[in-house]
């Protein structure tokens, strides 16, 4: 480092000519790890008679072979090759973790059954119970998106109104201060007998959990807009509507998104609780049902699916924000 500074010209010219090593050893190693998983799964004797061992083993073998086959070609696969190379340490570690899991459950039975099922037991749930699991995802998504859309829209409009019109602020502020901090789940018993159906009650609760943070952050965003922005627009002949729609709202949008993110997190929590306690469908209900039947493999499968769903929705919101707030510097990456 200091040598190159002393030399005056840093010898950076070598950098662009760097290529993927041939064959890329990272990808080869990941492939080998998956083949090892296949070997452990298929080769070692099991402590108990388990279904789908063959499916897990052959799946791991197929993935391992695919990695080995693609490894030499990774340099020619463009961005896919680069991604494969970037992700291969994770692939390898995932395979190693599965080997360890397989060993302590299916092979050596070191963990108490049925609380800690083997990987193939969870695979079995995905292979056999996917219609029910898929239906639960769909029901959860419908309930969540309805409530979230209502809550986000109401919160946004209310937040803008409070930030813009003094009279709205006068009446809304005390109500928000008093009722807002109450967790939405506390309304659950009340909501379930006030609303005609458990579905509408849950929609209301999700909307409530979403609406509060969106309202408060939209309001604070609108209230915090640089006053000079309004002076500029007023001298240029802007109407009241222009000041709200084209100045206050775009300026407040970064805050609005913070509220939308907080609301999404809160809505997940309410959704699961509502489904566990009242709604007869959805992933929360599936979790509860699985626990009731001591079907722990189903529970883990539902947890994995739920994590995938929540993280996908957050990613989706990040994508939307990146598109709408492309003008912002230093965006948080997800």
């Amino acid at each position, binding site marked *: 480092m200091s040598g190159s500074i002393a030399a005056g010209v840093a010898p950076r010219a070598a950098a662009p000519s760097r290529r993927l090593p041939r064959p890329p050893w990272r990808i080869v190693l990941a492939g080998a790890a998956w083949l090892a998983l296949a070997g452990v799964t298929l080769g070692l004797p099991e402590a108990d008679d388990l279904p789908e061992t063959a499916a897990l083993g052959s799946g791991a073998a197929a993935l391992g072979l695919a990695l080995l086959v693609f490894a030499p070609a990774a340099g020619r696969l463009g961005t896919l090759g680069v991604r494969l190379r970037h992700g291969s340490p994770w692939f390898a570690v995932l395979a190693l973790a599965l080997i360890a899991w397989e060993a302590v459950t299916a092979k050596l039975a070191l963990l108490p059954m049925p609380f800690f099922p083997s990987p193939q037991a969870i695979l079995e749930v995905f292979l056999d119970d996917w219609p029910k699991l898929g239906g639960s995802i769909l029901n959860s998504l419908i309930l969540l998106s309805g409530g979230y859309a209502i809550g986000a829209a109401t919160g946004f409009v209310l937040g803008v109104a409070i930030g813009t019109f003094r009279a709205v602020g006068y009446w809304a502020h005390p109500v928000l201060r008093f009722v807002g901090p109450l967790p939405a789940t506390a309304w659950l018993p009340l909501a379930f007998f006030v609303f005609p159906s458990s579905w509408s009650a849950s929609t209301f609760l999700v909307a409530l959990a979403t609406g509060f943070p969106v309202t408060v952050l939209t309001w604070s965003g609108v209230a915090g807009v*640089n006053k*000079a*922005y309004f*002076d*500029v*627009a*007023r*001298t*240029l*002949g*802007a*109407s009241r509507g*222009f000041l709200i729609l*084209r*100045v206050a709202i*775009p*300026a407040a*949008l970064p805050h609005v998104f913070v509220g939308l993110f907080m609301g999404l997190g809160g809505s997940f929590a309410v959704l699961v609780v509502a489904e566990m306690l009242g709604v007869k469908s959805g992933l929360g209900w599936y979790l509860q049902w699985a626990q009731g039947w001591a079907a722990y493999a189903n529970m883990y499968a539902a947890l994995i699916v739920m994590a995938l769903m929540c993280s996908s929705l957050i990613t989706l919101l990040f994508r939307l924000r990146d598109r709408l*707030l492309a*003008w*912002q*510097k230093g965006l948080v990456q997800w």
Partner: protein
Amino acid sequence: MVAAATLECPEAGAAGARLTVESVSHAFAIRGAPLLVLDRVSLDVEPGGFVALLGPSGCGKSTLLRLVAGLEPPDQGAIRVDGDPVEGPDPSRLLVFQDPTLYPWRTVRGNVALGLEARGVGRSRAARVDRALGLVGLSGFADVYPHQLSGGMAQRAALARALVNEPRLLLLDEPLGKLDALTRLAMQAEILRLWQEKRFTALLVTHDVEEALVLAERVIVLSDRPAAIRAALPVAVPYPRHRDDPEIVRLRREILGILGQPA
């Protein structure tokens, strides 16, 4: 709009408005107690003239510009433009702030188009924006966001945002106050060129004596708060002016003397 302006001002090429400030006083309420910032200020700027208001920082110069822009009504006195009292903001009287205050969510083009958009000028909007950007030398930066601009470029964009509306009175509130010395010199020449080309009436607030003397036809020296007029000095030096011109040097010494500074 241009046609109307020409009708009101029969003199050829005189697009500028006449500004009359009659004995204006203004106070702010600081914790309930009134703080007088302007004390019976009167001035008259002829159409197409360039007047600089010079005074110590925080003396109330910016307040006067806000009153002329119509952002606030004066407590006492009257402000007239072409004889009509100022009753609110109007795109024919535009303010350029010390901060460019560009909207960060709009590109340079979107910022310059702001006034035309706000008043619903649809036809000819793109062409006028392009012309204004060309006028300030930002044609190549139309689709760039403000955070990608340097301080000088941002202030040029703010000038274009005002000029695209063909203002008849341009109020410059220390527009170059936050720029580095070299950029400031370049921008002074730029403002002078735009004024000579467009013939709007210009009222510049500054605390830079040299800037006032290089740009303005008349320099009005204000006292510390509350601002009152201490002196009005015509600068009878042809443009482009040189900072070492003996008359400029003499006026600078005189003004610094009025402001109580050793020259």
